[in-house]
């Protein structure tokens, strides 16, 4: 424990950081590495790579992700906002670019290549989008004559349009859902909730009718007929593992799940380490989400409240959708499990988001006394 007398940035950081969050994030990162050893060799061998190709890359990505997370956690709220605005601009530009120069994988253009590194801009868009929306909502709250809500809505429209164009329905749903939850918390009138809820349902219906693969997946989920191989396997892996798992490296069902290292890590964890492990992972996610929301509840500053809540809601929604699919509670939908699933872009992007959460939840005793305006004005002037 650093002394109060120590005024170095690291010491201040250590005193003010939310250590529960930090511990949870580090645990998840560690589990991600452990589980990549369980889940990825089978996939790597299947596509003819070195057995530990994905595992080593997971470690390779975890290190910069850790650095990014810690670095971001040093930022002030104002700096977080500024960073988010810059990230949003870059991400939006890249998302337009990806439609033209993106690499097409399985009928979708989501990836853009920079000097040999593939980047998925939509992953970086999410935290930036959340922070900017939080700021817009907060501004509107503070000064109702500022059309923050309308601007947030406009931004949502742009983001959704770009995501649908890729198409990436998973991220679309996630962005829409998160925005909806934030707007809900920002005091959306019930009439709006009903209207937007209806629009959301209409959009889901439209997706069902427009995209055949969406319709197929939902039909298969509801009727249990057709090719439900992947989700069946996920469920079977968990059942096969039982409470205590079959032991590290002993899993058999994991060998036949196509995306065991990405979307189905949770099921693999269940097979090898048991349902106990699934509980542990789930409790970590639940802890982060509920703790984040609890902080938002006690927070006096609107921006911080919405930003933290928004970030943990994205994180939470992503985790529950992934687990739901793995456990056959939801129709098959490609959604990564934050920190755990393999994927460079998502790893770094999640690290940035959670870095922001850490940054925004640092103890600021002086701000609890006089919440709101001075700092917000200050921040506004800075833009």
């Amino acid at each position, binding site marked *: 424990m650093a002394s109060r007398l120590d005024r170095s940035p690291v010491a201040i950081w250590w005193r003010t950081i939310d250590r529960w969050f930090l511990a949870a994030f580090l645990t998840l990162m560690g589990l991600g590495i452990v589980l990549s050893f369980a889940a990825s060799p089978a996939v790597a061998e299947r596509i003819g790579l070195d057995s530990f190709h994905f595992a080593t890359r997971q470690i390779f990505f975890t290190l910069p992700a850790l650095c990014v997370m810690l670095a971001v956690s040093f930022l002030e709220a104002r700096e977080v906002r500024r960073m988010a605005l810059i990230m949003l601009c870059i991400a939006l530009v890249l998302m337009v670019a990806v439609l033209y120069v993106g690499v097409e994988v399985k009928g979708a253009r989501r990836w853009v290549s920079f000097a040999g590194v593939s980047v998925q801009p939509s992953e970086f868009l999410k935290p930036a989008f959340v922070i900017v929306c939080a700021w817009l909502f907060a501004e*509107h*709250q503070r000064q*109702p*004559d*500022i*059309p923050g*809500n*309308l*601007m947030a809505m406009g931004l949502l429209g742009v983001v959704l349009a770009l995501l649908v164009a890729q198409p990436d329905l998973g991220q679309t749903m996630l962005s829409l859902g998160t925005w909806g*939850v934030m707007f*809900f*918390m*920002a*005091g*959306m*009138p019930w*009439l*709006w909730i009903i209207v937007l809820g209806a629009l959301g349902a209409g959009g889901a219906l439209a997706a069902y009718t427009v995209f055949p693969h969406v319709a197929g997946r939902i039909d298969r989920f509801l009727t249990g007929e057709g090719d439900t*191989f992947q989700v069946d*396997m996920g*469920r*079977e892996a*968990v*059942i*096969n593992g*039982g*409470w205590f798992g079959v032991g590290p490296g002993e899993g*058999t*069902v994991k*060998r*036949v799940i196509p995306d065991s290292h990405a979307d189905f890590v949770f099921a693999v964890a*269940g097979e090898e380490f048991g*349902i106990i492990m*699934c*509980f542990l992972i*789930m409790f970590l*996610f*639940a802890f982060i*989400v*509920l703790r984040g*929301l*609890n902080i*938002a*509840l006690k927070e*006096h500053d*609107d921006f911080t*409240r919405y930003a933290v*809540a928004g970030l943990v*809601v994205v994180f*939470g929604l992503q985790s*529950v959708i992934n*687990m*739901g699919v793995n*456990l056959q*509670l939801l129709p098959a939908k490609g959604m990564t499990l934050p920190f755990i699933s393999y994927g460079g872009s998502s790893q770094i992007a999640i690290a940035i988001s959670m870095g922001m959460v850490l940054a925004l939840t640092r103890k600021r005793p002086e701000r609890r006394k006089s919440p709101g305006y001075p700092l917000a004005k200050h921040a*506004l002037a800075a*833009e």
Partner: protein
Amino acid sequence: MMKLWRKRLSKAEASTASIVVDGARKATGGRTKNRVVMTMTVFFGIYATITGRLIYLGMLQPDESGGPATRVTASRPDIVDRNGEVLATDIKTLSLFAEPRRIVDADEVIEKLSTVLPDIDVEQTYKRLKSGAGFVWLKRQLSPRQQADIMQLGLPGIGFRTEKRRFYPGGPTAAHILGLTNIDNQGIAGMEKYIDDQGLADLQASGLADAKDLRPVRLSIDLRVQHIVRDEVAKALDKYQAIAAGAVVLNVKTGEVLAMASVPDFDPNNPYNALDKDHLNRMSAGVYEMGSTIKSFTTAMALDSGKVTLNSTFDATRPITIGRQTIRDFHGKGRVLSVPEVFIYSSNIGSAREADVVGIEGHREFLKRIGLLDRLQTELPEVARPTEPKVWKKVHSITISFGHGMSTTPLQTAVGAAALMNGGYLMNPTFLPRTEQDAMASAKQVVNTKTSQDMRYLYLLNAEKGSGKRAEVPGYRVGGKTGTAEKVVNGRYASNVRFNAFLAAFPMDDPQYVVLSIVDEPKPEKPGMPATAGLNAAPVVANIIRRSASFLGVKPEFGHESEATVASSYD
């Protein structure tokens, strides 16, 4: 810049965004907190659901049974002949299956398996192993030796299942009667299919078909006679270089089929050729213009009408010309013939005139009554439907009177003949044991007893004096009618392509059995000899009767001339 932008937007908003502004203005920290609490509650609920699902999955038992459940191959009852000899039984075999989901390396599996099973289809097996199915068969019905060898390979994801396989100790002896089962031991032909249709299939589907509880199915077949019949027709096939031959032995008093064979046939233990075109059961599933054997029915019809007696005569002096056709006699006598003469000389002209007596309608009605125009009702599924002219005209009645223009199955011809022999009672043939009482209960009288007696006389007479001499078996008083029908080749009757039949009964003083033999497209036994039914179909019947009569319980009577006893009553 920012300020300008904000101003412009706020102006625009002032007019339209009253709802939003109103909502925002009312917003208090309290409301926001409520909403955060609501969000937390929802998330808590979702995570609770996932917890519940995990607990539920934890309660489920993983499938350790060695593969997903698929239907277990069905047990079938044994099939035995009328004396209890086994005709068909189940034996246990081992079948190799794989669970593709558990297969780690399909190439390795195929490579190693091919050391034990060299004939395995690599491409197909690879596809199956890659199919992602829960269960696929790799090779059915292996020997214990092969099983041991495969187990030695130590491959994961494959296993064995004990299966039932049908075994027919007699091989091809009764192939067409017993039929076949498929690889899942379900009846697909013959009596096997009949047994399934009688409820065994339902029993198997409900899993109640336990091998111990299944009582053997007893057939009316006598294995000894069946063996003789098949042996004789096989010999005939060879001897006369025919394309097919067949025979049936039918109990005239009960309608039971004692034996029935049609060659070429197949070995039900290895039925690779069972579906070949010429391997069908010609006795029940083939229809033929039976030729002169049908004159039995024409004569019986004329006698039964009451307008003709054995002493009636018909003018067979000149051929009958109708339309473009001219009806001639094969053994033409060129004179007036009595009814017995028409029969033993097999006069086409005489038969035509006999049919003329009852008229076209009467003719058709009689054939319908004796079952020659309808599909035969029996247990065997392979029964063909006879054919007749769409509209009966004079010419049809004339040609049908001597067995052309109408096609029937040999079996139903024999069944009709049984009715002529047994006192006039038509009974559906059966392949299951039946008592005389049961048979009579369902029989219907189609000709009167006097007609039946006359027909016995004519059959015996024909065998003694007419075309059936070669069917004589000392002591057994065989009577019968030959039929040498020209077959239609390219739309015309060809004089050298024939379908021969001999329809016989014995012993003629009280007929017990009808024996019908057919020889399809026989070649002359020696160059220059004719290939008529009397020379090939009749000896087949004679051989069958000679060899099987004692098994059939018919006592030979030597020492006095049977002709005298029978003939005297009609002279």
